[in-house]
C-alpha cells in the first residue's frame, strides 16, 4: 500500500515520447479530439459504430507509443466510480421489455436493455476520458494553450477574454501534478501518525479525506498567491499587448491526420446508423 498516487493519476501528464502524433500542430490534435468526442456522443448503440471508434483507439495507441499499461492505470479510478453508476443504470432502467427481463423487484430490474444501455454508457465515458487524457499525453500544455487561443481568437470580438481563460485552464492543469504530490504528502503525514487511509467504512474514509482538505486548500491558496505575484512581476497583464514566441505551422502530416480522424468519426456515426 505504498503511497504513490502520482503513479496512478495520469490525467494532465505530458509524456515526452516524440512520436509522429506529438509532432502534429496542436490545432490538429484539438480538432481531431473534438471530432472523436463528437462522434462518441452521436454514435448510436451499434457494434459497427463502436468498432470504428475502437479502431481509432488502436491507431492512436500504435502511433503515439504511449504504453497501454500507463493508460489503463490512469483509468482505474474512473472504472471504480463508473461501476457504481453502471449498477444503478442497470437496476433502474425504465420500462424494460418484459421479454428480456431476468429479474424484477418493484422498480428495480435486470434486463437485456438495461445491461446494454449500461455497457454503452460505460464505453462512452471511457472513450471520452481516453480522448482527453491522450490529448494531454501527446501535447505540451503550452502548445495546447496556443492552439486553443488561436482557434478561439474570433471570440475576442465578442469581448470574451480568450487569453485569460486559456491561461486559467493551463495553470489549473499545470497544478494537477503538484496538487497530487501535495495530497501524497498529506496522506503520508496522516499515515505516519497511524491513519490507514485505505481502510474503514464510507463515513470513516470521508472523515479522513476531510482531514487533509483544510491543509490542502491552505497550501494551494498560498501557492496561487505566490504564482500571481510572480506572474505580475513578469509583467503579465492578460492578453493585452502580448505576443507569442512560437509559430503554429500546419503541415502535410496535419492534413493527413485530420482526414483520418474525420473519416473515422464520420465513419463511426454513419455506420452506427446504417447497422444498428
Amino acid at each position, binding site marked *: *500500500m505504498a503511497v504513490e498516487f502520482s503513479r496512478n493519476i495520469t490525467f494532465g501528464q505530458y509524456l515526452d515520447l516524440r512520436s509522429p502524433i506529438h509532432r502534429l500542430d496542436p490545432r490538429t490534435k484539438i480538432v481531431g479530439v473534438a471530432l472523436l468526442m463528437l462522434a462518441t456522443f452521436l454514435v448510436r448503440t451499434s457494434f459497427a459504430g463502436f468498432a470504428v471508434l475502437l479502431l481509432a483507439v488502436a491507431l492512436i495507441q500504435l502511433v503515439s507509443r504511449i504504453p497501454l499499461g500507463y493508460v489503463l492505470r490512469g483509468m482505474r479510478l474512473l472504472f471504480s466510480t463508473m461501476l457504481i453508476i453502471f449498477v444503478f443504470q442497470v437496476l433502474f432502467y425504465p420500462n424494460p421489455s418484459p421479454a428480456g427481463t431476468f429479474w424484477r423487484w418493484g422498480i428495480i430490474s435486470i434486463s437485456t436493455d438495461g445491461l446494454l444501455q449500461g455497457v454503452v454508457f460505460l464505453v462512452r465515458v471511457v472513450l471520452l476520458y481516453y480522448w482527453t487524457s491522450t490529448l494531454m499525453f501527446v501535447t505540451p500544455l503550452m502548445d495546447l494553450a496556443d492552439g486553443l487561443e488561436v482557434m478561439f481568437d474570433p471570440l475576442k470580438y465578442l469581448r470574451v477574454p480568450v487569453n485569460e481563460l486559456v491561461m486559467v485552464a493551463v495553470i489549473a492543469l499545470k497544478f494537477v501534478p503538484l496538487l497530487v504530490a501535495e495530497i501524497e504528502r498529506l496522506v503520508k503525514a496522516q499515515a505516519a*501518525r497511524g491513519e490507514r487511509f485505505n481502510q474503514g467504512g464510507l463515513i470513516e474514509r470521508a472523515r479522513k479525506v476531510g482531514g487533509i482538505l483544510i491543509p490542502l486548500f491552505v497550501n494551494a491558496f498560498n501557492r496561487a498567491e505566490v504564482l500571481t505575484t510572480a506572474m505580475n512581476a513578469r*509583467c*503579465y497583464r492578460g492578453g493585452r499587448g502580448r505576443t507569442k514566441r512560437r509559430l503554429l505551422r500546419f503541415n502535410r502530416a496535419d492534413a493527413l491526420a485530420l482526414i483520418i480522424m474525420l473519416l473515422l468519426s464520420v465513419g463511426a456515426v454513419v455506420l452506427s446508423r446504417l447497422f444498428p
Partner: protein
Amino acid sequence: MLDAQNLSFAYNAGSADAIQALHDVSLQVAPGELVAIIGHNGSGKSTLAKLLAAIMEPTGGAINVDGIAATPANVWEIRRRVGMVFQRPDDQLVANTVIDDVAFGPENLGLPRAEIETRVLDALAALGLGALTNAQISELSGGEKQRVAIAGVLAMQPAYLILDEPTTMIAPALARDLIALAHDLRARNGLAVLHITHFMHEIVSFDRVVVMDGGRVLMQGTPREVFARADELRAVGLAPPLVTDLGHRLRARGVALPAVVLTSGELAAALAARAEQQEVGNGIEAPEGTGSPAIPESLPPNSQPLVDVRDLDFTYMAGTPLAQEALRGVSCALYEGETLAILGGTQAGKSTLIEFFNALRVPPLGHVFFDGQDIGAPKADLDRVRQSVGMVFQQPESQLLEDTVGKDVSFVPRRKKLPPAESRAIVQRVLTEVGLDYETFRLRYIYALSGGQKRRVAIAGALAAEPRVLILDEPVAGLDPRGRAELATLITNLTRRAGLSVVLVGNAIDELAELADRALVMHAGRVALEGPLRTLLQRADELHALGLELSEPAEIALALRGVLPGLPTNLLSLDELEQALVTRLATGNRQATLDEPQRH
C-alpha cells in the same frame, strides 16, 4: 540608480489591525552593484523587495528607477527593469517546458517573435541551460528550476535583479553556485543584484550589506564594516561568519591578523605571511591527516538492531515511462537509543529510505525488519511499527492536520482512544518538552504560529505517539538562524533522552549531524560511506565528491591546509578548530626554534 526614499509600508493599512512592516527605509543601489539584504523573518526584507519591484505600493515614500518614478502609470516599466525571483521555483514557473517559461516575460512585453527568440536563447545560455532548452520543467532538479526562474527574469533584460531568499531551501553547494552566478551576471550583463538571505557567509563577496531589523535599516556598509560590528549583529540574533569569529579569537590570542577576516582564503594568506616572517611552516613535513583508507566499522551495540534494512531496492513510478530508480541495494541498521545521521546530496535516496523505516512504504518480504519482525510479511503489524516510529517530514508545518495546537498534538492519543485525562497528560508533557507552554498554546490556531513554532508542534505531534524512534527529515531547513538555533537545542535534548533512537536526515554535516553517534552517507541510491562522523570527516575529499558539505570548521581547516599542512579536518566546532589551530601554530613555532641550530 535604484533609489528608494523614506519608504514605509503597512499591511492592512488604514484598518484597525494594520501591521507596520517598514518604517522610513531609504536605500540606493547603483547599476551593477551587488547588495545583500540580511535580517530575520519579519525584519521587513521581503516587503522591501516587493516594494522595489513595484509589486506592492508603498504607503509612504517614493521609488525612482533610473529616472523613472514608480507611479501607477509606470508600474510595468519598473517591473521590467527590476526583476524578482522568489524562494520556491515550483510556485513561480508558469509553463511546462524550459523555453516556454523563459519566453513568458518577453511575450508579456509584446516583443516581436524574432526578438523573443534571441532573448530567450541568450538568457538560457547565460545560465548554462542550453542543453535543457526543450526539457520538461517537472523533470528538472530544484537547482535547475531555480536557474530557469532566473533566466525567465533575465530575458526581460532588467537592470536590477532581486533574489528573495533563494538559498533558504537549497543545498549549500547550490547556494554557492547561485552566489557565483550573481557575480557572473554582474560581470557579463552589468546587472545589479539584490540578494536577500539569512546566511552571512554567502555575502562576504558582496559590495554592500544592508542589515534590517524590525522594519528598519539597522546598518549598512561593506561586509568588512558590517562584520566588524559583531556585537550589534548578535544583539539582533545574527552572527558574522564562523571564520570571522575565528579570526577574532586568534587575534585575542596574539596572532597577528587583520581586524576582520572574511574568508578562509584571507585567513590562510594572513597566516602564510606571518609564517614567512617567522620562518614558520616552511619546509615542515607534518603527517597528512591520518589518511587511513578504510574506515573502521563503528562497533554496533551488542544487540539486535531496532530497524534493520537488508539489500533494499526501490523504483518510483515503476512500470511507467517516468520510472526512476531511488534505492539500489541499501543495507543499514538503527539500534536502540542511538542517534543516526543519514546524509547525502539531492536524489541520494535519503527521504525514500526513511519511508521504509516506518512502513509508509511496504517492502517485499525479507528486506526491512522492525524489532525483529519482517515488515514485508503479509501479516505484519504495520500499525505497531508506525506508532513506534515517529516521523517528522520536510517542512512539517504544511502537514499539520488540525486547526489548533492541542487538537493536532493529541491526534494520535485520541486515535488510540486513550482516556481524556491520560491524553491530556501526554499533550502537556510533549508540548513542554518542545518548549511550548501547554496553557498558552493549547487553543492557539496553527496558522497563526511562526514557522519555528509550527515545527515544534509537528515534533510534539510525533512525540505524542510515544515512539521508540523519531525520524526528522531536514528539520531546520528553511528557518532563519534564530529558529535554527532554537530547534537545534530542542533536538539535542531529544537525542539525549534514554531509549529514544533519533534519525537525522540532512544534506550537510551541520550542527545537527554532529549530534549523531554514527552517520550514513548516501549517494545515488546507495550507502557510500558509514561510520562515526569524526572518522568520516578525515576523508574530506571523498565527502565533497559525494555532494556533501563538511562542517564549517572542517571546511576552514581544509582550506588552511595549504599553509598549515597536516591540520586535522575532523573538527566539529569552533572551539575545536581554534584549539587545533593554536596547537598547530605552537608546534610550528617550536619546530622552527628546533630547526634553527641545524640551519646555521
